């Protein structure tokens, strides 16, 4: 039986002469992979709705390995994300991160709302914050949340002279030697992290962290995420070559 989903296209690959294989991240069914027949033909109805970053509604016919995506309508084309090189690079990175961390057919509704919110924030030119928010909250939503109040070794509360390990979050001075990838964490960045995780996702845009705090958080999260990946992300190199922040 066919069913309708609302989702965002996070990956597109060409298939044959005129078809596409799209990965759609949906609110209700998690990540789906489907064939969109004829989607590369100029007059095909699926041409625009199956472009990467598009938020749309799709009709899915279940298949064994790949589903079939037939009707589609655009909810939000997110064209501005494709029209700007830096936004395109950031959005590609977020999609790759998501694709690598979520399993197929496993609904994670919080993450769908997160992605739409972060795309909206990024479209307003705020990707340096939006990307960090996405990283921190994605880890949180998938059960990899960094520990931000207690030492992951001994459980003692830590509030000052903070150290952060990519292995799981805060670590106290005496336990720090038991962990790898230990970095100092400034109080400002610590406060930012807590808000990014705990605040309602719609409020993240209120935050205006300093470039310093964002740079520190970026370095921290890079290690935190790398620690959980078995091979590196492809889209990072390009993002690094073109972005100006």
């Amino acid at each position, binding site marked *: 039986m066919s069913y309708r989903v609302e989702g965002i296209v996070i990956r597109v690959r060409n298939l044959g002469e005129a078809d596409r294989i799209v990965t759609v991240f949906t609110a209700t069914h998690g990540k789906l992979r489907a064939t969109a027949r004829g989607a590369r033909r100029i*007059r095909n109805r699926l041409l*625009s709705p199956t472009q*990467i970053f598009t938020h749309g509604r799709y009709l899915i016919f279940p298949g064994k390995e790949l589903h079939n995506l037939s009707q589609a309508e655009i909810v939000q084309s997110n064209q501005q994300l494709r029209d700007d090189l830096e936004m395109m690079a950031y959005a590609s990175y977020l999609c*790759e991160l998501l694709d690598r961390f979520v399993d197929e057919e496993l609904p994670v509704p919080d993450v769908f709302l997160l992605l739409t919110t972060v795309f909206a924030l990024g479209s307003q030119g705020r990707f340096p914050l939006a990307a960090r928010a996405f990283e921190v909250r994605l880890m949180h939503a998938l059960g990899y949340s960094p520990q931000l109040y207690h030492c992951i070794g001994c459980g003692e509360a830590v509030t000052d002279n903070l150290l952060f390990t990519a292995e799981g979050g805060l670590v106290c001075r005496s336990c720090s030697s038991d962990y790898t990838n230990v970095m100092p964490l400034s109080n400002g960045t610590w406060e930012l992290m807590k808000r990014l995780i705990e605040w309602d996702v719609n409020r993240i845009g209120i935050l205006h962290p300093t470039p310093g705090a964002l740079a520190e958080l970026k370095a921290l999260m890079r290690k935190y995420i790398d620690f959980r990946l078995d091979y590196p992300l492809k889209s990072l*190199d390009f993002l690094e070559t073109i972005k100006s922040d």
Partner: protein
Amino acid sequence: MSRYPKPMARLIEELTRLPGVGPKTAQRLSYFMIGMSEEEVHNLATAILEAKQRIKFCSQCFQLTEEDPCPFCSDDRRDRTIICVVEEPRDVLAIERTKEFHGLYHVLHGAISPLEGIGPEDLRITELMSRLGPEVKEVLLATDPNVEGEATAMYLARLIKPLGIRVTRMAHGMPVGSDLEYVDEVTLGKALEGRREL
């Protein structure tokens, strides 16, 4: 164990490597080839081998060619002040068919695709930059109007504009002969954005 005699299984395997050829098609082609006369098979094999041995990339524009430089690059009647940048060798022929362009070409051999790990360093961009001497007045970016092609065009514009060279992009239009109401909103939006005076 293969159901086919060994040489045939090998032929099927080799054919499956071709784009758009699945096991079924490969099997059908193999049966057909085995049914061909020895002379026909010989001609086909020689044609493939000769094409492979004699076709190379033009050292200037990276189009496929038998002669280096290619007929475009060595043709004095072509306008040397404008270079049209395309993704693939076949795109050159598509533009030639319009008979509207008389400048030189440059083939990138791909497009930027962060999600596939294809970056600027994987394309013939350094070679393009080294062609931009004082005689070049305009670079026309004719990469595909999809996300990879647009990203590539934007990336090139960033590099080339500071050199004081005019950078142009193919217009995004409505498919000729289409009905407005059936054109999707993204294409229509782009066409509105690129509207021109009549």
